[in-house]
C-alpha cells in the first residue's frame, strides 16, 4: 500500500492517521504531503484527508482547503479511480470539493460533540468496509462541531438506492439526516465519515473497531 496523508494548516489528526496507516501498511507505506504541493507522489493508492480545523474553519469548514493547490491533484486521483478517505474535517473537505455529495452543517445541538459513538455498518460492499459485516455494531469516537450531514431528498434517495451509506449512528449525536455518519462515492472508492477510525486502533484508545477498516484497505492494495 502506498498512502499519503494531506496536511493543511490546522490539521490535527494527520499524525494519528499516518500511525494508523503504517500499522497496517508498514513504516514505509505512508507519507505526509503538505497542502501546497501541486502533485501527489507517484504510484499512490490512497489519499487520506485527516481531521482538524484546516484554515481555522474560516468561511466554512473545509472550504478553503478544498481550494488549496493539492486539492486539484486529489480530485484527479479520485477521477482516475484512486482511493480517498476523508475523516471529520476530511469529510467536510470532500463535500466542498464535490467528490462526495451533500454538506456538513453545524450540529443540531450547537455543541461540539467529543465522545465514542455507537454505529451500524450499513454496507460491507466497499474496500473500506468489507472487513465488517453489514449490520455490525461498532464504536468509534467523534469530535466535531459541524457533523450534521444534509442532502436534498433526491440525493438521499440516490445514496440509499445505490447502497452508498457506509455507517449510521445508533444515537444521532449531531442531527445528521437519516443518521448518516459516513458515505461512499458512486465508484465506492471515496469514503467520507465524521467518526475517527484512526482513534480506535489500539486497546489503549478504548477500542479497536477502526482496525478492520484500515486492514481491509491494506489487504486490497497489497493485492492490487
Amino acid at each position, binding site marked *: 500500500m502506498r498512502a499519503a496523508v494531506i496536511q493543511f494548516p490546522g490539521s490535527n489528526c494527520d499524525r494519528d492517521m499516518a500511525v494508523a496507516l503504517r500499522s497496517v501498511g508498514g513504516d514505509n507505506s505512508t507519507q505526509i504531503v503538505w497542502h501546497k504541493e501541486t502533485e501527489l507522489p507517484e504510484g499512490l493508492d490512497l489519499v487520506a484527508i485527516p481531521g482538524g480545523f484546516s484554515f481555522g474553519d474560516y*468561511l*466554512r469548514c473545509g*472550504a478553503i482547503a478544498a*481550494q488549496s493547490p493539492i486539492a486539484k491533484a486529489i480530485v484527479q486521483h479520485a477521477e482516475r479511480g484512486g482511493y480517498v478517505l476523508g475523516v471529520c474535517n476530511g469529510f467536510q473537505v470532500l*463535500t*466542498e470539493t464535490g467528490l462526495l*455529495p*451533500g*454538506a456538513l*452543517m*453545524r*450540529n*443540531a*445541538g*450547537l455543541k461540539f460533540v467529543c465522545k465514542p459513538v455507537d454505529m451500524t455498518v450499513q454496507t460491507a460492499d466497499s474496500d473500506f468496509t468489507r472487513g465488517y459485516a453489514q449490520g455490525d455494531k461498532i464504536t468509534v469516537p467523534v469530535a466535531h462541531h459541524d457533523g*450534521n450531514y*444534509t*442532502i*436534498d431528498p433526491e440525493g438521499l434517495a440516490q445514496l440509499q438506492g445505490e447502497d452508498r451509506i457506509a455507517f449510521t449512528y445508533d444515537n444521532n449525536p449531531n*442531527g445528521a439526516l437519516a443518521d448518516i455518519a459516513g458515505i461512499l462515492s458512486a465508484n465506492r472508492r471515496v469514503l467520507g465519515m465524521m467518526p475517527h477510525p484512526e482513534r480506535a486502533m489500539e486497546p489503549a484508545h478504548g477500542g479497536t473497531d477502526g482496525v478492520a477498516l484500515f486492514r481491509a484497505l491494506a489487504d486490497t492494495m497489497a493485492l492490487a
Partner: protein
Amino acid sequence: MKARVHVMLKNGVLDPQGDAVRHALGTLGFDGVNGVRQGKVIDLDLADGTSEETIRDMCEKLLANTVIESYSVEIA
C-alpha cells in the same frame, strides 16, 4: 469598486443557530419572534469594472456552498 455579498441558508434548510437566537430572544422577553435565520455578509473591495458575472462566479466557487446556501450580490 465595492460589492456586498449576502449568503443565507436556502429556504427549507434547518438553521440550528438561527433557532437558538430565536429561543434566546424569547427568553429575553421579546415576544412574537416567529423565526430567525442567520447568514453572512461579505464585503469585497474589487478592481473597478469587475463584472457582476465575475462576482457570481466567486460565490459559486467559494463564497457560498450552493448545496445548502443561496447568495445575492449588491454592487455599491
